[in-house]
């Protein structure tokens, strides 16, 4: 028995084939919202579920790939032989490529957002958080994390970024208020924390910049969420934040000895707040002009060109530990090489016991 195959002389061009990886299929099955997104019409399109983001690559081929659909030909076409056919299939579309998804990190574009320092009350409203989420090539879950990580907040309905200084003050106040009210730092909720902060700050009629939205940003940025929804203060991230603040404050103009810096770092925390100080948390934010001293390094001052970046880093410090240099170069490793292989393309790598040393060529 035969199946007769037909083809449209003018095939449709509105169909495309997308490789459905197990995680995409799972997202479809579970009824998640799936979207195609791009920052702008001319930029690369990504596929987003509620939890993940995939970049799409057009995988071309030179084969003839026909999409056919079962159909019934018009009556006058049928002859005795054709009536014997099991079915008739009409090739309605020819495909010359498949879209191949690859899991990638979602992005949000916060460059155009106003900055809020707790004082400028008349913000220029350029976007709302909802609009920003819709236009970001990023899944909803990733957006939440990245939004708070960037210090994103809503002030008077406008999406904006909180300044480092204001966020530091808000974090400091939040920790102090929670400790004063004996709120469990391992089970924080926005409402209760906001009320505790308001108690400390509000005088009748006085402007309080620490709104519920600001506290939400603090909790979103510095708390970890357990699967049951419980949010606990992430002491590592708090420690890192205070460490970077201390670096900027005390080690930006001149290097500071390691011991002296640790004392300065410790002094930044609210009284009676305990957390571990581990210098490795600050990797990517400092360099060591001498083995025993550290100096703040602003990432925004680093050259964008990979060769220039290595040249600059070796100029300020001739010998690096791989762990220290890695956060300062990994954004340039766009082809996803192993960090060792990437470093060897531009520098010399040596093993010294358990340490891996990176020097210039």
């Amino acid at each position, binding site marked *: *028995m*035969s*199946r*007769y*195959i*037909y*083809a*449209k*002389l*003018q095939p449709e061009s*509105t*169909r*495309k*084939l*997308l*490789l*459905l*990886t197990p995680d*995409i*299929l799972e997202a*479809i*099955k579970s*009824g998640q*919202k*799936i*979207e*195609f*997104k*791009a*920052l*702008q*019409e001319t930029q690369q*399109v990504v*596929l987003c579920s509620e939890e993940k983001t995939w970049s799409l690559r057009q995988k071309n081929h*030179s*084969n*003839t*790939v*026909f*999409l*056919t*659909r*079962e*159909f019934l*030909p*018009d009556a*006058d*076409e049928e002859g005795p032989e054709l009536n014997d056919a099991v*079915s008739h*299939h*009409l*090739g309605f579309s020819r495909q010359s490529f*498949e*879209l191949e998804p690859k899991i990638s990190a979602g992005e949000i574009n916060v460059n155009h957002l106003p900055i809020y320092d707790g004082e400028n009350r008349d913000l220029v409203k350029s976007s709302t958080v909802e609009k920003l989420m*819709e*236009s970001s*090539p990023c899944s909803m879950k990733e957006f939440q994390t990245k939004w708070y990580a960037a210090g994103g907040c809503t002030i008077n309905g406008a999406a904006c970024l909180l300044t480092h200084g204001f966020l530091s003050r808000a974090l400091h106040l939040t920790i102090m208020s929670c400790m004063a009210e004996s709120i469990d730092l391992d089970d924080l909720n926005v409402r209760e924390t906001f009320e505790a902060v308001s108690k400390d700050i509000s005088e009748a009629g006085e402007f309080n910049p620490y709104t519920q939205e600001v506290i939400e940003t603090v909790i979103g940025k510095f708390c970890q969420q357990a699967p049951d929804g419980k949010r606990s203060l992430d002491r590592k991230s708090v420690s890192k934040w205070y460490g970077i603040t201390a670096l900027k404050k005390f080690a930006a103009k001149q290097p500071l000895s390691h011991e002296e810096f640790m004392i300065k770092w410790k002094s930044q925390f609210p009284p009676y707040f305990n957390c571990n100080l581990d210098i490795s948390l600050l990797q990517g934010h400092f360099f060591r002009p001498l083995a025993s001293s550290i100096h703040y390094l602003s990432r925004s001052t680093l050259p964008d060109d990979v060769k220039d970046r290595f040249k600059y880093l070796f100029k300020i410090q001739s010998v690096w530990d791989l762990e220290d240099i890695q956060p300062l170069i990994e954004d340039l490793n766009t082809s996803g090489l192993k960090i060792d292989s990437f470093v060897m393309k531009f520098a010399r790598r040596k093993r010294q016991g358990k340490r891996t040393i990176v020097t210039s060529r």
Partner: protein
Amino acid sequence: MPSVELSTSQIRRVLKNDLERPVSITTPFGNMLLEIQGDLDFPAESPRYDPQRIFSKYQDDQIVRFGRLIIEADYKKATLYIGEKQRLLGSIMKLETPLGLLKFNQDSTTVELEDIIQFKIIFKDRPLPIM
């Protein structure tokens, strides 16, 4: 853009059972994927002279009946007869990663996942003559 929702409502109705079903050349929506290594040339319009009456119309579209497909009972091998002189030997392959069939509607700026294709009939070899 910047964002277009992919409509999956139609496909979700059949997705649960469909992925576990046995070999089936066509999907529940009647779609089938054929792959031929090489090119198939069709005229852009139906010719006037068509003694074999292979050109016709279907819903205002000009179509051509170009082949006859025979699938063996075990759903492993297939033969495609093209015209009267060529035949292709092929096989039925389960796709390692299923393919989603997306339909882009420019007018309503919507994208729909119309179907999920799990099998394809692939013809890798050169055509053989029919004696």
